[in-house]
């Protein structure tokens, strides 16, 4: 932990009392859709977290956003050209993702779902490696244990499962801290333990209905783990609107589990950064889990196999395009005196990165056939060894006949 911003976040009871009369506070935001400084009343408790963020850092955020978007478009193109098995666009969600990514410390650990390409980029993962999964070359393209990948875990495709893993991982952070302090007890109802590290987990409005996602909240609340749950409510679970998943704003569910939660404008990078930064500090200091619902929108299709024209209308998309997070941060940076040369340079970086990703993905070597067997077990397994040898001999028999 390298900063000492005093925490003034609202506690659970304050958040619950805000709901009396059934009125939700306005989602936390600092910037309006054009990037003008216009904080909501609900933003006040989180404003201190922005004090340490300089303009240069926000320019980095901006570059990450435009790079990821260019990469995203390139991957869609590659899929349309038959070079990717599938692509999962994240266009429209870069704003909250970049804010969340930079709010985390390097020692924090991040469990994504499968659409967090901007977080991957911000944590140091090579976007080529993200592409490998969808090209069908790897089940996961990067090694989360390699320090260059910034404690960014692999994508999880059976959604919700990763929320349980994240709580288990943060439980380990808690138990490590207890062991270091000689504390052998973890009693029902006890207060949290300072850990100095936290775990973030991402999922969406659809996944919020999964049993795993709900069990994860129960375990996190029970053990007071240092977990930050981040729900990107992008309004659609493939073709099903969020109203099918929940009759209440999703963040309210977390309050019911005893976890402080707020709703933010998910297209405002500053709101994402400030709330996550404040909540992560609380979690690392033994405050237990926290929960953020980011209201955002999936501008593109769910995946390249999807046809969104079947279930949503153009007016809705236009409305959200007007709230584009890249446009919003650009407006803010311009208002602070950032000039055209920066934006042109960022676009050039994005174009170059998209081109590099394209070239690299097209030349990705398919794993050696032996990799089918190589990693199933850590210790030798006779059935695997027998089939590995059989396949090698079988494939080799064709080469002999071909001679």
């Amino acid at each position, binding site marked *: 932990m390298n900063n000492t911003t005093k925490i003034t976040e609202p506690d659970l009871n304050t958040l619950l009392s805000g709901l009396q009369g059934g009125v939700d506070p306005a989602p936390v935001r600092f910037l309006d859709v054009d990037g003008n400084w216009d904080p909501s009343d609900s933003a006040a408790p989180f404003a201190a977290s922005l004090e340490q963020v300089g303009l240069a850092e926000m320019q980095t955020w901006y570059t990450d956003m435009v790079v990821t978007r260019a990469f995203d478009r390139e991957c869609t193109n590659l899929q349309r050209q038959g070079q990717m098995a599938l692509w999962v666009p994240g266009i429209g969600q870069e704003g909250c993702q970049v804010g969340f990514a930079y709010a985390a410390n390097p020692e924090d650990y991040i469990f994504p779902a499968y659409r967090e390409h901007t977080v991957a980029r911000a944590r140091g993962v090579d976007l080529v490696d993200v592409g490998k999964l969808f090209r069908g070359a790897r089940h996961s393209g990067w090694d989360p244990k390699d320090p260059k990948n910034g404690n960014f875990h692999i994508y999880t495709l059976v959604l919700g499962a990763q929320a349980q893993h994240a709580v288990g991982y943060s439980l380990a952070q808690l138990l490590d801290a207890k062991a270091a302090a000689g504390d052998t007890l973890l009693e029902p109802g006890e207060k949290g333990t300072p850990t100095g590290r936290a775990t973030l987990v991402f999922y969406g409005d659809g996944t919020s209905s999964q049993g*795993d996602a709900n069990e994860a909240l129960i375990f996190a609340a029970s053990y007071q783990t240092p977990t930050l749950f981040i729900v990107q409510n992008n309004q659609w679970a493939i073709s099903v609107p969020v109203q099918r998943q929940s009759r209440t704003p999703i963040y309210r569910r977390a309050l019911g589990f005893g976890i402080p939660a707020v709703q933010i404008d998910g297209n405002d990078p500053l709101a994402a950064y400030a709330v996550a930064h404040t909540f992560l500090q609380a979690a690392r200091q033994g405050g237990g889990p926290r929960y953020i619902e980011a209201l955002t929108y999936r501008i593109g299709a769910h995946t390249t196999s999807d046809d969104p024209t079947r279930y949503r209308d153009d007016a809705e998309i236009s409305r959200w395009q007007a709230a584009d997070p890249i446009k919003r941060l650009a407006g803010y940076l311009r208002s602070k005196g950032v000039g055209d040369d920066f934006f042109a340079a960022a676009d050039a970086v994005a174009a170059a990165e998209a081109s590099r990703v394209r070239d690299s993905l097209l030349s990705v070597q398919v794993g050696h056939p032996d990799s089918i067997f190589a990693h199933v077990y850590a210790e030798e397994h006779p059935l695997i060894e027998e089939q590995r040898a059989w396949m090698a001999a079988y494939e080799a028999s064709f080469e002999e006949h071909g001679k």
Partner: protein
Amino acid sequence: MTETVANVENMVLARVLNKALADAMEADSKVLLLGEDIGKLGGVFRVTDKLMERFGSARVLDTPLAEAGIVGNAIGLAMAGYRPVVEIQFDGFVYPAFNQIVSQLAKYRSRTQGAFTLPVVIRIPYGGHIGAVEHHQESVEAYFAHTAGLRVVAPSHPNDAYWMLRQAIEAPDPVIFLEPKAKYWMKGEVDFSKPAAGLYASRIARPGTDVTLVGWGAMTTTLLQAAQIAESEGTSCEVIDLRGLSPVDYEPVFASVRKTGRVVVAQEAPGNVSLGSELAATITEHCFYTLQAPVLRVSGYDTPFPVAMLESLYLPDADRVLEAVDRTMHY
């Protein structure tokens, strides 16, 4: 090498498992236990009796009542360097955790090209003979033996219970550890000085020459009874206790079949698409020319486990095994 001095005690199987857990926790501070009611109660079968008192509630974790959560949290803990040993309270309660076991725990090593090895042990009291209500007497091995990335074992007596649990906890891969709950109160000698065999090695529980009987877990006792009765009627049965269900240590089975030419595989589980089916197919492939009769299976019926008052009709006993022995001898 120094000669190991035998350190033998006569103990009940459930107590032996308790000692194995305690010894594993003493040996490695990263071993911790998760499960429902495993703390003050000591588990519904008392396998974790007094372990919370001894090691603290930060190493013996009573969990919320959610099996997917227990296994999912164990996976996260293992990713961060712990060696969780999970207790699923009863066999029929494991299904809520099925995705976490089959899609997550089992596949993590493959999905990450070997970056994550998850040394999680899932202990499941399995099988019948205790007259319990529904969902409390099932044999679940086929689901997990079918899944690449998992290892599945079942001890049949106290000495194996101790050593196989110690070995499972030390193993780098995820292990489904099936405890024959009908034998929790079985007493037997345990030699704490050294393991009798490797974790997956099959074992000749009784030598014989006419028919090979193959089983595992609680069924081993039934096969030994059948072999004794058969002997009095002039048929010599060799009993093989499989121990490892994935992988199966086939060589001792093949060697036995090449000697006897006749095999009966017995299991509590329903026979359709079962481990017994796999054994029958594999034995046939490898021992075709020495078989004097088809491999026969004695199984639970292909129905849900019946009400407790009818369980003795459902579970294969020595008589049903002997009926199959007669059939193979007279084929």
